């Protein structure tokens, strides 16, 4: 019964969102000019540029291929270097924020844990693009600033997820060790090692996300693939754009595949090929133990990549002197003070300034941002749900749930198609998708909604399919065997048991959608991002800070709400 209300509520919220965002269905049909532009633009996809489109620069400067390679390398480098820092933050934060190593609780430990979790959430509430804008404004352009802009929110996310994984991990081994006289932290090693496959899997997933973020940072000036896309767009070189987009997708897909393989290897382990008998010597047994060359190679290449990334940068800091940077920083701080306070010297003016801005633009922007994220998340969920009968491997075959039914060739083909679209959707950064879609739909909210929905439906489709595929329920098999069709089985036997988990995933993505919705406004259509962009362009850093804080508060609250809902659902 509750589920029906949930679904109805979702639909109502979606419609409300569309109304608030003034997204009319008639805007879905692009103008004739838009269609022309879209066909030009997407037509160019079939022939990505292999050399500069502007003939004049072909013989000058570096070859096009070098430019692409450089941008690609920088994208990967910033991602890897930022992740290495984030990993350190994540490990410290993850351990401090978990209670798996406590032998007994105390007020100090509990407050430490909550404090660390809140800090991690706060770090993550500020989007990496916004960190980048802040750092760039404060200390000027430097690779370190760009890297730190990603390391902070990613470190926060890692800390939060690591602490959750550690809390949920099996404590059996730790309990045995404590019972055997082991001290808290030594026993914790048992839990930590047990959770290691999950921790590493998540870290690799974050690395893949970092590559996307690294590319998107290009839109604010960091010299990664996103920057090249932006410049090529502004110059009207559509074929070049596609070259960069394809390269980005390839890199992201590579990291996704790598991470997937790592996960499988960690979870399954390697079975030794030779089964030695009892007579074997210790040395022989050690030789024959199951080892994974893949994992070793992975570790080696990651370490090398990180080392190379850190060491190959000739100027981590800016090219300015220390005094100059300090002067810039203090000037930046003073610019953060609200304008009326700077003029009058009276901090009491802050309230009036704050209320004025919120009333004029802030509250509306917050409201629209919330609805943009929510509507997009709901749409993504709906799309993923509808495609579930095809995206779930155990359903989209000729033998659904291992019951031989029919030919299923078309069905598995369609299933593969759905899965491939999902992979592509989630490999493309939302910001990039929005940027491209705005060209087709013009400055409407639909472009932003679809950008978020495409990316997130890819993710939700994958997560939902896993829930369905991992469902060991016999009820589904029985239904198919007694002649039920796949959709009915999905609705009747599989969805009900998996419902809670899917709602869990929806809330997790909802909160991310709000976060991205804040940023997407920077592309020009009204959410908080638009106000941030305006403030930045006019150098009103006080307003910039206000909008950033508002946006982060929204995400922070969304994060907490999502956590609470998930806690309740898990019970």
């Amino acid at each position, binding site marked *: 019964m509750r589920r029906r209300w949930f679904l109805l509520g979702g639909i109502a919220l979606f419609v409300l969102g569309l109304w608030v965002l003034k997204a009319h269905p008639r805007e879905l049909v692009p103008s004739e000019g838009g269609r022309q532009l879209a066909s030009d633009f997407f037509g160019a996809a079939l022939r990505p540029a292999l050399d500069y489109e502007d003939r004049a620069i072909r013989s000058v400067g570096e070859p096009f291929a070098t430019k692409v390679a450089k941008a690609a390398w920088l994208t990967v480098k910033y991602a890897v270097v930022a992740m290495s820092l984030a990993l350190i933050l994540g490990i410290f934060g993850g351990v401090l924020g978990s209670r798996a190593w406590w032998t007994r609780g105390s007020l100090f430990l509990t407050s430490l844990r909550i404090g660390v979790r809140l800090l991690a959430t706060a770090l993550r509430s500020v989007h990496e693009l916004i960190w980048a804008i802040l750092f760039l404004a404060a200390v000027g352009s430097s690779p370190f600033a760009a890297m730190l802009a990603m390391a902070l929110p990613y470190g926060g996310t890692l800390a939060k997820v690591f602490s959750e994984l550690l809390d949920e991990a099996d404590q059996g081994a730790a309990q045995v060790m404590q019972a055997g*006289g082991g001290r808290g932290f030594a026993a914790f090693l048992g839990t930590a090692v047990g959770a290691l496959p999950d921790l590493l899997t998540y870290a690799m997933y974050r690395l893949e996300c970092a590559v996307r973020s690294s590319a998107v940072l290009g839109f604010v000036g960091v010299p990664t693939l996103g920057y090249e896309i932006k410049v090529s767009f502004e110059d009207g070189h559509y074929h070049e754009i596609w070259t960069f987009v394809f390269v980005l997708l390839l890199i992201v897909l590579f990291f996704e595949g790598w991470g997937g393989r790592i996960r499988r290897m960690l979870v399954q382990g390697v079975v030794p090929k030779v089964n030695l008998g009892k007579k074997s010597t210790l040395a022989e047994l050690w030789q024959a133990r199951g080892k994974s060359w893949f994992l070793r190679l992975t570790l080696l290449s990651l370490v090398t990549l990180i080392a190379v990334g850190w060491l190959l940068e000739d100027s981590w800091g800016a090219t300015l002197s220390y005094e100059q940077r300090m002067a810039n920083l203090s000037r930046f701080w003073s610019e953060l003070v609200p304008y009326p306070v700077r003029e009058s010297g009276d901090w009491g003016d802050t309230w009036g300034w704050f209320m004025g801005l919120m009333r004029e633009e802030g509250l509306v922007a917050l409201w629209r941002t919330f609805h943009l994220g929510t509507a997009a998340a709901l749409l993504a969920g709906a799309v993923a749900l509808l495609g579930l009968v095809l995206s779930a491997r155990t359903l989209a075959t000729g033998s659904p749930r291992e019951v031989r039914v029919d030919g299923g060739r078309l069905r598995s083909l369609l299933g593969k198609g759905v899965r491939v679209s999902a992979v592509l959707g989630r490999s493309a950064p939302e910001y990039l998708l929005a940027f491209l879609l705005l060209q087709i739909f013009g400055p409407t909210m639909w472009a932003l909604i679809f950008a978020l929905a495409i990316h997130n439906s890819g993710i939700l489709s994958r997560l939902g399919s896993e829930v369905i595929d991992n469902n060991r329920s016999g009820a589904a098999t029985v239904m198919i065997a007694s002649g039920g069709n796949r959709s009915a089985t999905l609705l009747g036997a599989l969805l009900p048991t998996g419902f809670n988990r899917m709602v869990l995933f929806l809330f997790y993505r909802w909160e991310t959608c709000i976060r991205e919705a804040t940023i997407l406004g920077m592309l020009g259509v009204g959410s908080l991002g638009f106000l941030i962009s305006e403030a930045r362009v006019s150098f009103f850093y006080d307003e910039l800070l206000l909008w950033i804080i508002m946006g982060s508060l929204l995400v922070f609250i969304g994060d907490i709400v999502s956590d609470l809902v998930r806690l309740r659902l898990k019970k």
Partner: protein
Amino acid sequence: MFTLQSVELRYGGTVALDGLDLDIKSGEQVCLIGPSGAGKSSLLGLLNGRTAATSGHVSVEGTDLAKLSGKELQKLRSRIAWVPQDLGLVSSLRVHQNVACGRVAEKGFWGLLRSLLGMRASEKAVIHELLKRVGIEEKIFQRADHLSGGQQQRVAIARALYQQPSAILADEPVSAVDPERARDLVALLSTLAKEEGVTLVMSLHDLTLARQFFDRVIGLRDGRVVFDGRADDAGVRDLYRLGGEAMPDPSVVS
């Protein structure tokens, strides 16, 4: 070794153990018998101080547990090995690493870390010998979750032995294993304990097994000791009568 005096254990409103008086001597092999919920696990929990008695005294090696400081309790626990029902193995670690966890008390955090990351050859040899005694030495470098249930049980036993304890507490170590294997495992554990002169307190719910391998059987029901003594025929009849269970065919029992 273990002495309980008028021990009562309450969880909220439920009474898990009620007025227990028990004395287990050093080197004794004792089996706790009883239906689910009788209090076997709770009793085992008291013996190494994992749970504190609500009232009464629990003494180990003459010392009242309640009077021990944290450090002293730790020292005491390092001499008692615990094998829980779900084994508490780290599935992604190899057998030798799991066994090494047995000496966590003397190794500490850094020692254990070192053993896990790069174990000395000498230690590997010691563990290999130990695994021979439980019969799975060829699995020494395999991942724990690649082993069968029975083999995993043996790993847990090996870990307990590696600790070189004065006492082993085993909580239903054979409940998830088929009867054939169960016999072998109980035999193994009680034999090893006898060899080492280690006190063994094991809880089972299969009376046949208990009779076969243990001289002393303690029957628990609803948190009380209803039987304590030799599990010979007379005793068995008493136990079954008290438990209200039907007595099996004598020929099978013998």
